[in-house]
C-alpha cells in the first residue's frame, strides 16, 4: 500500500482551503508543493547554520561548506553522474540551458552550423537556442511530432547532417506528457558524435534518471518541480565538456587568481558557480531528494501512473473532451480541451470550484501553433494527489461544461 495519508500529512499546504473548498492542487508541472522536512531544513539553516561558504575558516563556514558539498554528492548519486564536479548548481532549468547555450554556443557553434530541437519544447529549451543560433548565424531545426504527441524519430534521423553541432531535447513534455525515448535519441546523435542536452525539468521528480546509462552530455532540472525550493536547479555536464567550455558568468568563487590584466579560472564545478550560491536552496534540494528516495522512486512512479490511468479514463468519459498527448509512454499529466469551449473560460470555473489547474500555452507557444490550438487545460499530478481529487476535477470540468455550453 502506498502511504498516501502519511505523505499528505507531510505537505502542509494541502490542508489549505480556497473559496471555502479544500484545495485540489493539480498544477504540479508548474511547481510542486514542499514537504515540511524541506521547509524545516531551510529554517534550520537560517536558525543555526547560516554562513557564506568556501570562504571562511571559521566553524560555521566549514560546516555550511560541508553540507553544501555533501548535497552535490547526493545529487551526483541521485542522477547517476560519475563525478560530483559534473554537478553545477544553477537557478533552475532555464539558467542551466542558458549556460550551455552561451558557453557551448560560443565555443563550438559558428556560422552555417545546425542545432536540433523539437516542436514540443518549453520556451526555456527553445528561446536560448533560437537566439544563440541567430547570434552565431546558425540554423535551428525542429523534430516534428506524430499524431499521438510522440517524436517522429525517422524525421529526427533525417534532420541530422554534417553540420549538426548539438541536439537539445526535453525528456518529458510539460504539455503532452510524452516521455521521449531519450536513450535512443542520444544513441542516434552519438553515432555522429553529436552531443545531446536533455531538459529534465519534468522528469526527475517522476522517474529514476541515470545520466550515465542514458549517456547524456548535459542534463538540466529545477528543484522547485521536485519538492525543493524555488531558485535552485542543476546542470549536469560530462566532465570533458565542462572542462572545455568557457565560463558563463564572472565574479567571485569562479576564479583562481585575479591580476590587473587577466584572470585564471577556478576548477570544476566552481568555474561555473560565480558569486554567493543559493545555499538554502541546495540544502532544501538535498532534503527533497532524501524524501523522494525514502518514499521510493519506483513506488512514486507506479502510484502516479495509477493516477494518470484513472484520470485519463474518467476524463474521457466526458463527451466532447479531447486529450492532447496520447503517447504510450506518458508522465502523470493530462492536457485537454472541450469542444466549443475556450480553455480560459473552463479554467476560470474549475478554479472557482477549488481545483488548481493550469490553462494557456504552458510556455510552449510554438507547440500551440503546431497543434493549431489556443492553449489547453492541464492537470498534472504528484504522488500526494488522490483519486478522490481526480473525481473533484471531473465534477468541476462537467460543471464548467454545463455552464459554458
Amino acid at each position, binding site marked *: 500500500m502506498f502511504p498516501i495519508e502519511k505523505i499528505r500529512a507531510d505537505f502542509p499546504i494541502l490542508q489549505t482551503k480556497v473559496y471555502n473548498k479544500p484545495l485540489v492542487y493539480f498544477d504540479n508541472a508548474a511547481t510542486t508543493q514542499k514537504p515540511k522536512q524541506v521547509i524545516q531544513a531551510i529554517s534550520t539553516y537560517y536558525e543555526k547554520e547560516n554562513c557564506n561558504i568556501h570562504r571562511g575558516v571559521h566553524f560555521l563556514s566549514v560546516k555550511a561548506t560541508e553540507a553544501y558539498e555533501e548535497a552535490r554528492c547526493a545529487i551526483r548519486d541521485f542522477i547517476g553522474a560519475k563525478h560530483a564536479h559534473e554537478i553545477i548548481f544553477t537557478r533552475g532549468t532555464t539558467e542551466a540551458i542558458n549556460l550551455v547555450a552561451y558557453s557551448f554556443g560560443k565555443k563550438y557553434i559558428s556560422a552555417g552550423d545546425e542545432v536540433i530541437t523539437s516542436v514540443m519544447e518549453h520556451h526555456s529549451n527553445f528561446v536560448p537556442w533560437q537566439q544563440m543560433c541567430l547570434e552565431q548565424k546558425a540554423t535551428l531545426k525542429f523534430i516534428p511530432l506524430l499524431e499521438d504527441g510522440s517524436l517522429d524519430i525517422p524525421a529526427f534521423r533525417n534532420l541530422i547532417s554534417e553540420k549538426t553541432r548539438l541536439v537539445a531535447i526535453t525528456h518529458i513534455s510539460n504539455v503532452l506528457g510524452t516521455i521521449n525515448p531519450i536513450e535512443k535519441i542520444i544513441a542516434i546523435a552519438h553515432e555522429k558524435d553529436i552531443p545531446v542536452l536533455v531538459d529534465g525539468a519534468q522528469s526527475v521528480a517522476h522517474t529514476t534518471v541515470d545520466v550515465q546509462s542514458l549517456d547524456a552530455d548535459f542534463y538540466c532540472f529545477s528543484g522547485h518541480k521536485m519538492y525543493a525550493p524555488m531558485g535552485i536547479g542543476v546542470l549536469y555536464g560530462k566532465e570533458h565538456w565542462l572542462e572545455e567550455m568557457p565560463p558563463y558568468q564572472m565574479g567571485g568563487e569562479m576564479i583562481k587568481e585575479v591580476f590587473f590584466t587577466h584572470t585564471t579560472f577556478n576548477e570544476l564545478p566552481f568555474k561555473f558557480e560565480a558569486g554567493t550560491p543559493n545555499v538554502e536552496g541546495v540544502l532544501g534540494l538535498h532534503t527533497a531528494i532524501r524524501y523522494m528516495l525514502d518514499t521510493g522512486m519506483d513506488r512514486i512512479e507506479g502510484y502516479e501512473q495509477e493516477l494518470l490511468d484513472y484520470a485519463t479514463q474518467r476524463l474521457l468519459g466526458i463527451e466532447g473532451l479531447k486529450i492532447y498527448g496520447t503517447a504510450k509512454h506518458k508522465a502523470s499529466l493530462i492536457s485537454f480541451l472541450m469542444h466549443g469551449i475556450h480553455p480560459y*473560460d473552463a479554467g476560470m470555473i474549475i*478554479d472557482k470550484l477549488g481545483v488548481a489547474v493550469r490553462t494557456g500555452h504552458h510556455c510552449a507557444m510554438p507547440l500551440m501553433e503546431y497543434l493549431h490550438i489556443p492553449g489547453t487545460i492541464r492537470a498534472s499530478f504528484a504522488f500526494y494527489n488522490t483519486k478522490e481529487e481526480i473525481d473533484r476535477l471531473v465534477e468541476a470540468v462537467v460543471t464548467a461544461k454545463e455552464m*459554458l455550453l
Partner: protein
Amino acid sequence: MTISEIEAEIVSEFSLFEDWMDKYNYLIELGKSLPVIDPKYKTEQYIISGCQSQVWLHAEYREGKVVYTADSDAIITKGIVSLLIRVLANQSPKDIVEANLDFIDTIGLREHLSPTRSNGLNSMIKQMKLYAVVFQQKYGERS
C-alpha cells in the same frame, strides 16, 4: 443615460446575485448576446494585446458619440467586454476619457479574475479610452 447611471444600474443588477456562480452565469449570458463584430475587424490590427484570450475591439465616431463593437474567443471575456461596452458606448469621447469605472471593483469583477485576466481587463479599458482620446483630438473639444 450617463456613464455613472449605467454603472449604478449594473451594480444593482449584480447585487441580486448570491455567489460568483450566478455572476459567471450572467457574464456568460452577456457574452453570448454581445452583438457580433463585423468580421473585417477580426484581424491582428484590432486585437488587444495583454489579454490571454483574443479580444478584438473596434470603435467609430458617430455624431459626437463613440460606437464600440468587440468580440472574443472566450465567452467570459466576451461578457466582460460587453459590460464595458454597455457603460461606454454611445457616450462622448470626453466622458469616456474621464470615466473612472468604479463599478468594476464594486461588483467584485477584478477579484474574480486571475491577475493575467485582470491585466487583460486593464488593457481593454485602456484601449477603449485610447479610441476616445483619438476621437477627441480629431474632432475637437466640442466632443
